[in-house]
């Protein structure tokens, strides 16, 4: 058997010069004038008559369907080495690689003038005049660290950014100079024709990686791992999935133009230290729904001119700052900048502990003792006289609680036709002094949590009351409790009536949520004097629960009176709350809590 396969007739290798690279098939083929095979005389063998030499590609390139690296690289004038695939026939050249050198300026000038001579770049562009001028070798200057002033190093250092201002008057910063300190042969450089540069520099103690775009945008990583990214054009970063950024040091961001951040979902911003937002112009915080500002210490709103808070009503969980309610059909901004707010100051813990309006001692002058409570329970029918007599003479409050049931006082209310309305308007009268609007402001402040003009009919704490039932509860509360208080204390306002939600610190089974409770504040009364009002209510009105409430806030103590009325029966319990917990209950001090107060 005979075989005549590739290589059987010898390996014919050659050296030549690329004279054309505009391969119509875009395969990276070049027309190469080959030394010894092809005449240098271009009139005899024009460039277009040279065969297309196929480029051999590295094993790291698949050379298939776009996979791998493109086989483009040689420029006209590049010396290449290769072989003939068809052996001695010498018709089918393959390019294996390129050959660098140190071109002679004199020789290059001579052959460039000779228009009939081949073995050169027909366009006269290569070798570059700048390299020939100094008789430089073909190896890139960045690799040799020679004539660096004619490289991108100079371009980078000539345009350093300095004195960049930092927010809040912090110390400005400067762009570092390039850390280029390459030594031959450690710097591996790729430079394209237009001047894009990639460097992988292994120079000991000066290791770098650089990517430079001819427009001036670049990324430098120096031997310390410091990275400089400079973009001279616009920058677009598009991330289609999650982004996680960890910065262990500090960050300075200086935006000399405008800055727009649009977050289409939630945005959480947590700062362990202080957060300062300084706007030298206006600062606008706008919420499509609720805007919450919370602080564990002071919440200070300060304006050198006015503080404008606008809305249909302004409600706090302490004393209410409110302007008259807007008409039902129009809601106007209410200017409360001139509202006097003295009541939110001046109550200390001691004040709270010494009010004790609900003490069974005779602080409020009525001389009540435990025995008085027993007698009262008999009078209210909660225990019989026999049962009262069976109690020991020195009965303790705990024994009293254990043996005397809380028997609600039966009360009646006639809701009448009011309880049969299909719908309710804010202007609907509940009582002599109050309308639906007065007792439903909190519910209306949370429109997203209810449907319809009122919160009525919404399931509340597993109990579903109809809007008519809630309306009746509100009416009973207003007629039996609120009207008498308003008659007595004209500065009384309802800061929270019916609620369709459980506020922070609120009870899950709050009577607010069924329209049976209201929080009261008094716009012209010092909170120190709330205890006296509470005592008056306790002694003069029928109620289900009466609480004198204090809450420690940053810099002051807020106070209000919680009172409820249950049309089906009132327990008439009472006490003092400190931060939403009992301090005193039905005349009996809760010692643990008091101890905590003292501490």
């Amino acid at each position: 058997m005979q075989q005549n396969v590739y290589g059987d007739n010898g390996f014919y290798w050659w050296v030549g010069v690329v004279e054309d690279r505009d391969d119509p098939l875009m395969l990276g083929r070049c027309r190469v004038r080959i030394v010894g095979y092809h005449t240098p005389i271009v009139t005899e063998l024009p460039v277009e008559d040279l065969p297309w030499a196929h480029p051999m590609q590295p094993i790291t390139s698949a050379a298939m369907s776009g996979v791998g690296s493109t086989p483009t690289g040689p420029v006209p004038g590049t010396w290449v080495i290769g072989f003939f695939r068809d052996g001695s026939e010498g018709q089918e050249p393959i390019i294996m690689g390129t050959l660098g050198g140190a071109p002679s300026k004199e020789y290059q000038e001579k052959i460039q003038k000779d228009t009939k001579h081949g073995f050169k770049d027909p366009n006269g562009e290569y070798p570059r005049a700048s390299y020939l001028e100094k008789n430089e070798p073909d190896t890139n200057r960045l690799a040799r660290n020679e004539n660096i002033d004619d490289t991108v190093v100079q371009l980078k250092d000539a345009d350093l950014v300095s004195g960049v201002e930092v927010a809040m008057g912090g110390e400005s910063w400067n762009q570092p100079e390039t850390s280029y300190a390459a030594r031959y042969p450690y710097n591996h450089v790729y430079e394209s024709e237009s001047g894009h540069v990639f460097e992988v520099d292994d120079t000991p103690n000066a290791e770098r990686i650089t990517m430079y775009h001819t427009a001036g945008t670049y990324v430098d990583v120096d031997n310390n791992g410091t990275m400089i990214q400079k973009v001279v054009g616009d920058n677009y970063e598009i991330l289609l999935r999650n982004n996680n950024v960890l910065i262990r040091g500090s960050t300075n961001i200086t935006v000399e133009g405008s800055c727009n951040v649009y977050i289409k979902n939630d945005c959480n911003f947590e700062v362990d230290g202080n957060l300062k937002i300084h706007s030298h112009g206006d600062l606008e915080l706008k919420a499509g729904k609720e805007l919450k500002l919370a602080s564990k210490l002071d919440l200070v709103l300060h304006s050198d001119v006015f503080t404008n808070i606008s809305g249909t009503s302004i409600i706090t969980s302490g004393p209410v700052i409110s302007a008259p309610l807007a008409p039902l059909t129009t809601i106007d901004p209410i200017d409360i900048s001139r509202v006097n707010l003295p009541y939110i100051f001046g109550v200390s813990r001691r004040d709270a502990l010494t009010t004790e309006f609900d003490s069974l001692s005779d602080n409020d002058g009525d001389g009540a003792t435990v025995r008085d409570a027993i007698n009262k329970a008999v009078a209210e029918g909660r225990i019989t006289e026999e049962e009262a007599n069976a109690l020991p003479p020195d009965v303790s409050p705990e024994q009293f609680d254990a043996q005397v049931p809380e028997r609600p006082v039966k009360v009646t209310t006639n809701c009448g036709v009011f309880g049969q309305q299909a719908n309710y308007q804010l202007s609907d009268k509940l009582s002599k002094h109050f309308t639906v609007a007065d007792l439903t402001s909190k519910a209306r402040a949370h429109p997203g949590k209810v449907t319809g003009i009122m919160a009525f009919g919404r399931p509340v704490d597993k109990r579903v009351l109809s809007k008519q039932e809630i309306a009746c509860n509100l009416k009973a509360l207003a007629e039996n409790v609120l009207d008498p208080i308003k008659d007595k204390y004209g500065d009384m306002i309802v800061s929270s009536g019916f609620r369709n939600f459980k506020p922070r610190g609120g009870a899950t089974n709050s009577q607010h949520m069924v329209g049976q409770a209201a929080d009261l504040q008094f716009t012209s009364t010092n909170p120190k004097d709330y205890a006296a009002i509470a005592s008056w209510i306790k002694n003069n009105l029928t109620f289900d629960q009466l609480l004198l409430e204090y809450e420690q806030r940053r810099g002051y103590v807020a106070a209000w009176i919680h009172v409820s009325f249950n049309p089906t029966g009132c327990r008439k319990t009472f006490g003092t709350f400190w931060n939403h917990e009992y301090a005193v209950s039905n005349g009996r001090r809760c010692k643990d809590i008091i101890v905590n107060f003292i501490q």
Partner: protein
Amino acid sequence: MAEILNKVGEYVTDAIILTSKGKQLDISAFVVQTVIYEDIFSNVMTGHMVINDAADLISRLPIIGTELITVAFRTPTMPVTSSIKKDFYISSIAERELGDKEQNYVFNLIAIEGFVDSTTFLTSRLTGSTSDLIEKIYNEHLNVQKDLYIEQHTTKATVLPNHWTALKTINWLTNGGYREVPNTLFFESNKNFYCMSIDALIKNQKNNIYGSYTLTPEATSLSPTNIEQYFFIKNIAKMGFFDVLKGQDFGYYSNKLITHDIVTKQYQEWSFDYATARKGQTLLEHNMLFRDTTPNNPNTYRRVKSLDTKLWNDYTDPHYQTWAPLRNSLLYEAQSSRYIIEVHGRTDIEVGKVIECKIPKSIAKDDKSTLSSVLDPLLSGKYLITHIRHEFILGQHIMLLEIMKDSYRGSPE
């Protein structure tokens, strides 16, 4: 006075002129022997001349190479157009023997075209019809006076001769370009240049063969002036007959061409069976030289041909598979089924001529035997002259004819 033929094989020396530095010298008196070779497998004629020099020509002229020698030999009574006339260059001097009063040496001769060719190089790309390109090269680079007989073909080829000589380029075109008739050859006879296929040579002489040669003892009994003697085979060289193993090795019976196009990335195998392809070719006789049942396997000869169908923008696919395997078998056959016969020389003969040979069987014959009845059916028949060695010595023109056959006249079975 009218020319007469005194003896078969006689020749007339019309000229043996040596030209050196513009001076011409008739050196026929110094020539002892002249041998001229012509071959269909050789582009040009060659030869040698034995000189007995008692005048110290070699030093006086001097003869130091590249001198021109014009020879003209003619069979008496034949017209000048039947002469063997040729300009040769002395390519070398060999076997020089120095005597006291004379010396002997040999001029090795090469046709002037061959010599010119050795210093003529082509560097420009050629593209076009192969026959047009060959004719162009022949006319522009070989500087010859002889006519070229060329078969016209439409096959197009593109080649960049990398400083190839004219004849190398012509051979490339002949070898790779003529796919229409794969056994095309470019050769010189003593009369003309030819770029012809063996097929065409045979076809052109189908009814007009040069002569019929007979191997018979009767030849010795004829008069020396009897021109029939020209067509008696004086001698036949010891011959080989066939070599099946060699044929297998060279892919004569079948072979496989593997093509790989570097651009289209096409790998293709083309199996070839000569017995099948042979049936469409022009043959000297009718019966193939081998049984079509001869065991064969295309893998006995595998040849890879690299392809680059986009080598030039105007490149045309040479379709190697359509002719390269057939050419391989045809040329193997033409070079392997050859015999050598010795005959009296005539100057009107040339390579490429078809002759008939009548060769009797090597068996006992009786009085009733006639030539036709005892002819060997395998050896007798038509042959093509592929090579002629003309020897002019001591008034005798002796020819050794290499003749090839591509088929048997009689059925071998």
